[in-house]
């Protein structure tokens, strides 16, 4: 707690608030992963952790180190950029893979391929 004592009170409150809110959002997202019943429902849960949690926690650390002026604050910007760009791509591919597997297994609770049906194997 050497460097944290140098924070002025307003910055300290803001940093704490952002950090706690971000951690709470992440926790809610992971709780969704635990509680929601089907895979397609669970697909929505991690986006809360990324869009809410990551941005808030990165903002907290940017604010903390900008006020302390101990180093450049740009790494967090890069982290926000990477996470917001890459997570949708991952989830989209996972959703497609799950849909493909469910169709191969001919489960009844997923929508069929729209007609006219494409020949199997080509997309």
């Amino acid at each position, binding site marked *: 707690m050497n460097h944290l004592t140098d924070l002025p009170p307003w910055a300290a409150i803001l940093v704490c608030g952002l950090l706690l809110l971000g951690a709470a959002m992440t926790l809610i997202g992971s709780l969704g992963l635990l509680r929601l019943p089907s895979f397609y429902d669970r697909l929505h849960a991690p986006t809360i952790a990324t*869009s809410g949690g990551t941005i808030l926690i990165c903002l907290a650390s940017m604010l903390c180190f900008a006020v302390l002026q101990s180093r450049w604050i*740009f*790494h967090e910007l890069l982290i926000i950029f990477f996470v917001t760009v890459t*997570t*949708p791509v991952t989830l989209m591919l996972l959703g497609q893979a799950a849909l493909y597997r469910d169709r191969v297994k001919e489960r009844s609770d997923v929508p069929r391929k729209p007609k006219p049906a494409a020949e199997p194997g080509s997309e």
Partner: protein
Amino acid sequence: MRAWYPYPLFSIALFLMWLLLNQSVAPGSIVLSLFLSTLLGWVMVKLQPSQSRLRRLGLMAGFALAVAADIIRSNVAVARIILRPRGKPANTGFMTVDVDLENENALALLACILTATPGTAWLEYDRRQKSLLLHVLDIDNEDLWRRTVKRYEAGLKEILE
């Protein structure tokens, strides 16, 4: 200039990212990042991504703000659904929306926006039928989601096509 940098925006983004990763503006890293951004710009010519011009920066800013507001609202809504007591499960389901976008970049952007919004997940786009298969966490508001997708589609068309 165009011959040296066939994709100027891409090259600028690479240049800035290299400097950010190195956390320095020393002459050495500037020279290296200039070299890399030029070289990788030429590599992109080989890959031939579909090009589209960015028009109307003001419109883009407005669109980004609208998307950010939607994502925040949907974050709260999904958090509420997750924290619901066990007795009342969420009413989830699949839905199809007709989306008429030809531009590859606009489609990719639409996919990223819809998946980044917690309430909706992009599953499949059929190019021949021009229909999009979504999974939404709150199927009771199907009309609302349909209107949202339509709004995004109109915005992307204005910006990119």
